[in-house]
């Protein structure tokens, strides 16, 4: 794809993510959506930049803040929205919900609500990918808070030892719930742990879409080429509270203002105005298109039926295969 087209495509994807999350927030405020929701507004460059190099049959796994990862991996936004809204038409028939999205048609293997739990699971996807011999890779998203979990450390070791085709994408937004990273570890850059294992590791500005895009391009090729895992740490910021409803009193307002400046979408748009000649009208159309698609998804979800009462305890076990 020529660069100008690529830039527009990436911008469109970020808008799709942003529009999705803002719509979820809106539906939560109006009680159409309930549950424990963690939005990634402000972190779109990571999801979009990371997934832009992936094939449909590459595997992605995420955590409690992973709507955007599923969207960026190409999952159907209608079925995602319906799932988050608890409807029968959702990817999981309403059984999974916001923290447990699965969209296998798009290679989104699973999200989990257990901080760090996705990392060992991703080892498994990478293990299977390696054995399958079709140059698939696995990508796992997790936060800085997960970096103090045993699961994270055990997994770094195994991934490096077995040279698994896995890209670790750490979204270091500086907070775990209400406390800053400095309250959780003395290690400011989680990538340092990966280095200890001899793993290629990068820490970069996660609000700079092209930085993420470039680093991930190299990381995915290395993994695809059978050269083992790579660690990409993206410094970013969530522009919302930890969960919808969190007043986020623990953060300094100045800090938030500063990060608004760094909004990855506005920033990328400014950049490609010069570099790829994006016009205000084009940008407006891209945003409008994303919002329209998401509005459709919302309408689809709202119009969808609720799951049937007798679905409540089906699918506990798989039938014989």
């Amino acid at each position, binding site marked *: 794809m020529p660069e100008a087209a690529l830039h527009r495509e990436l911008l469109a994807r970020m808008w799709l993510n942003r529009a999705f999350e803002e719509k979820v927030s809106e539906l939560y405020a109006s009680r159409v959506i309930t*549950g424990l929701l963690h939005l990634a507004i402000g972190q779109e460059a990571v999801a979009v930049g990371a997934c832009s190099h992936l094939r449909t049959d590459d595997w992605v796994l995420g955590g409690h803040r992973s709507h955007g990862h599923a969207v960026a991996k190409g999952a159907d936004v209608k079925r995602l929205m319906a799932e988050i809204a608890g409807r029968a038409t959702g990817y999981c028939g309403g*059984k999974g919900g916001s923290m*447990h999205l699965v969209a296998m048609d798009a290679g989104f293997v699973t999200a989990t609500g257990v901080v760090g739990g996705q990392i060992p699971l991703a080892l498994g996807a990478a293990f299977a990918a390696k054995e399958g011999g079709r140059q698939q890779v696995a990508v796992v998203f997790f936060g800085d808070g997960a970096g103090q*979990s*045993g699961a994270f450390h055990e997994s770094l070791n195994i991934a490096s030892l077995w040279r698994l085709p896995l890209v670790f994408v750490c979204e270091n937004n500086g907070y775990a719930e209400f406390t800053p990273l400095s309250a959780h570890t003395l290690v400011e850059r989680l990538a340092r742990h990966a280095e200890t294992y001899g793993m290629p590791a990068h820490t970069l500005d996660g609000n700079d879409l092209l930085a993420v895009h470039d680093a991930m391009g190299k990381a995915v090729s290395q993994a695809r080429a059978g050269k083992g895992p790579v660690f990409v740490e993206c410094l970013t910021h969530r522009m919302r509270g930890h969960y919808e409803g969190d007043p986020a009193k623990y953060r300094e307002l100045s800090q938030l203002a500063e990060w608004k400046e760094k909004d990855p979408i506005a920033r990328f748009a400014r950049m490609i105005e010069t570099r790829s000649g994006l016009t205000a009208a084009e940008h407006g159309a891209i945003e409008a298109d994303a919002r329209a698609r998401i509005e459709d998804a919302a309408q689809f979800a709202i119009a969808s039926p609720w799951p049937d009462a007798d679905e409540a305890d089906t699918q506990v076990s798989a039938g014989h295969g």
Partner: protein
Amino acid sequence: MAEQSLLEAIREGLHEEMARDPAVYMLGEDVALGGPFGVTAGLAEAFGTQRVVNTPISEGAVMGLAIGAAAVGLRPVIEIMFIDFITLAMDQLVNHAAKLHYMSGGQLKIPLTVRVQCGISGNMGAQHSQSLEAWLAHVPGLKVVTPSCPADAKGLIKAAIRDDNPVVFIEHRGLYWARGEAAGAGAAVTPIGEAAVLREGEHITIATFGRQVAAALEAAAELAPQGISAEVIDLRSLQPLDMDTLVESVRKTGRLLVVHEAVSEGGIGAEIAMRVQQAAFYDLDGPILRLAAPFSPIPASSALDRFFVPGKAEILRAVRGAFRRQGAGG
């Protein structure tokens, strides 16, 4: 009568115990900021962040830390945010906390309190809604308590902290904001191992705990005018169980319905059935009944998760069914 919420009662109990004994420490994710529900709000301000300690997301190591500290003389209170995550600390809790007093031939004591929150509320899905008390009650060396009202919440948290053994104190998220009579400042400790008979009755015993206590009381009130007199027992302590109170009640009523929000198979109800029928077989007028969540993970959808919470309607149905069945089969 002064009222307070269950959450406030826990907080008051924690506050009083921290004030009373400098060996009491709080540890947990964001506890110094009150935690996600505000249970520990104000404690750091009162006792300092030296004693109210935010921890990294390292449930296993933090549990081990609390146990090790207890072994050498502190009385830590650790918070595991959701009981679903106790899965990450089971080695330390089960292989260490529960066994060290025994394995050391009594040399070590582990005066540890594990606060943990459970239950279905807020459509949080399969990994934030479980009720796993039966696992813990299967572990010799652990005590397990769970309050249904503010007064017991305060009395039991104090008892847990003063106990020389590891005590898991389970808080039902759906009860945090439930109000009830306040225990009052410096109120008494609620002894661990004693159930409470909240309503006396003649025809059936309903044994339950946590959120289902209110539902059982409501059901009993509705059954009374229909000629069914139900005795309602709040177990409060799941390990040890107060078998004396239970058996005495069933001897009188001849029937037992156990209600819990944990999935049916292998829950606390099963153990109660085993022991009640052993002790009161010849007094039973019908089978012991169980009302519990379906044996299934818990769905996220608000259209589905309510089928996992036994409430007044389900209790009424079960009790009425018991008497109908007697007519037919008994």
